[in-house]
């Protein structure tokens, strides 16, 4: 990667780690706040450790891993929603987190109202939202449901609307967390086409359990296990070793317990 200049690097992470604080007693956090300088009252639970990552502009990266391995936390840290506990992170450019945008929808409000709020949260100005509204509605393709309260929507319709909003925010870095899984085949194809097009000048980071999606969309795959990068590189190769590991390792409960 010697040919690229430093301005082409959109995400640069060095030795990144994220620990959540686990408390044995409910009120220990208070002791931690007051006497934290003298004694530590929590057990650190490391969800991410020693992550070294460099993402170039225009790359599209698929993140693989089992549930609870730290994939979503990694995306959250990169988006800046939560701070890493140690290490260095540098992000250049406008990020749109599609991390479960659908979960911020207010089910009592109509689709239209949720578009206004969702787009504002992603940083779009009101006149821009109004201008793009028809295009958003078109892309979502949910017709007259747009003015119905969202509680009448199906899961797929919510996903459609969520993706449609994100497709219109003009981000430079798009972060997607298993958002496509619920849509029907036709909509998935529409999203994939859109992403293909987006990749011409944008950067994509996404988590998926669908190997076909990863193979089709990604220039690089990263396999995360227990908070560390276990393997990264060519998507088909990473997927192959990931699959092999899944067959061998059984689904035990031990990996969700805190250690060290």
């Amino acid at each position, binding site marked *: 990667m010697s040919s690229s200049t430093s301005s082409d690097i959109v995400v640069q992470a060095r030795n990144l780690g994220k620990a*959540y*604080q686990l408390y044995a007693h409910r009120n220990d*956090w*208070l002791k931690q*706040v007051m006497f934290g300088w003298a004694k530590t009252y929590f057990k650190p639970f490391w969800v991410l450790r020693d992550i070294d990552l460099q993402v170039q502009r225009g790359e599209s990266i698929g993140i693989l891993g089992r549930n609870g391995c730290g994939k979503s936390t990694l995306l959250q840290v990169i*988006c*800046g*929603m*939560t*701070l*890493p*506990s*140690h*290490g*260095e*992170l*540098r*992000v*250049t*450019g*406008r*990020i749109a*987190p599609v*991390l*479960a*945008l659908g*979960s*911020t929808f*207010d089910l*009592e*409000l109509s689709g239209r*109202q949720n578009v*206004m*709020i969702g787009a*504002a*949260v*992603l*940083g*779009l*100005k*009101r006149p821009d939202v109004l201008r793009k509204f028809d295009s958003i509605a078109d892309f979502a393709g949910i017709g007259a449901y747009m003015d119905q309260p969202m509680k009448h929507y199906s899961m797929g319709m919510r996903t459609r609307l969520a993706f449609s909003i994100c497709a219109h925010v003009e981000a430079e870095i798009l972060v997607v967390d298993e958002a496509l899984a619920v849509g029907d085949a036709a909509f998935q194809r529409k999203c994939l086409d859109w992403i293909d097009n987006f990749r011409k000048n944008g950067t994509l980071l996404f988590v998926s359990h669908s190997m076909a999606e990863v193979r089709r969309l990604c220039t690089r795959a990263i396999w995360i296990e227990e908070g560390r990068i276990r393997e990264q590189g060519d998507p088909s190769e990473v997927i192959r070793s990931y699959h092999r590991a899944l067959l061998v390792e059984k689904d035990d409960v031990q990996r969700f317990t805190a250690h060290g």
Partner: protein
Amino acid sequence: MPSVKVVNGKQIVVESGGPIDRVGRFIVRPFARMWQHRDLIQAILRRELNERFKGSIAGWVWAVVAPLLAIAVYTFAFTTSLQLPMADSAMGPRLGYALFIFSGIIVFNFFSEMAFRAPMLLHEYSHFIKQTIFPSDMLAVISTIRAGIYTLISICVMLIFQVIAAGSLPWTVLLLPVVFVPFAAFLIGMSWFLCAIGAFTRDAGYLMINIMPLMMFATPVFYPHTALPAPLDFWIYANALTGFVEVTRDIVLMGVLPPLKVCLWTLFVSVFTFYFGYWFFDRYRNVIVDVI
């Protein structure tokens, strides 16, 4: 120019200039952020205002009916046997006292609505805070504006009532915005402080529920502070609300300029609370995301 830069759990903000520059930036920052997020503030405010009367037929009529009912009840309930202040008012003792209480209640309700809501504020919006990049410090601003709009309706009812009863308004009424801007700043600062604490523990909410009825009587809502013995003066003014209640009464009901000392003290409390709240919230902002 990186948009996010973090080293060892600390956000790196390039701070140039000396200490004076930094203090200057700190003072400007809350306002700069409000301006930067104005579209988001507007979008969420719209939703909050609609939410209050969602599913109701009369809708906004309730916002007007509530203060009207309150003022009617006070007029009848409090004017039968008490030794009344404002007995020499042009409107007669009954209406005078009703307005006296009502003006106090308006100020106090604005305060109590914020105090009740603030500890739960971040929990209400936790899905936004956890799932998206969300300026959580703007929530205190939004909820204060929302409560301010209802307060404004009450103020209008009070002014109309006064015009009907007394036939005129003193010119000092024009100073109301000058009073309510620092008051809003005080409440925003208080909300920042309370919602940061409320993110860690529910106790903040329970504390508020227990404290509010006491606060109502510790604040001169039903009586003028002059009704208390002089040695208590210090304590009654230590309650920041006293200043706001009395200044509001002076300019709306009495038509006089409030004492300079009270004004300065109240202004000082507002500015201090605003920046202390912001500093406190900012300090714990990054921890809050993980605990909420």
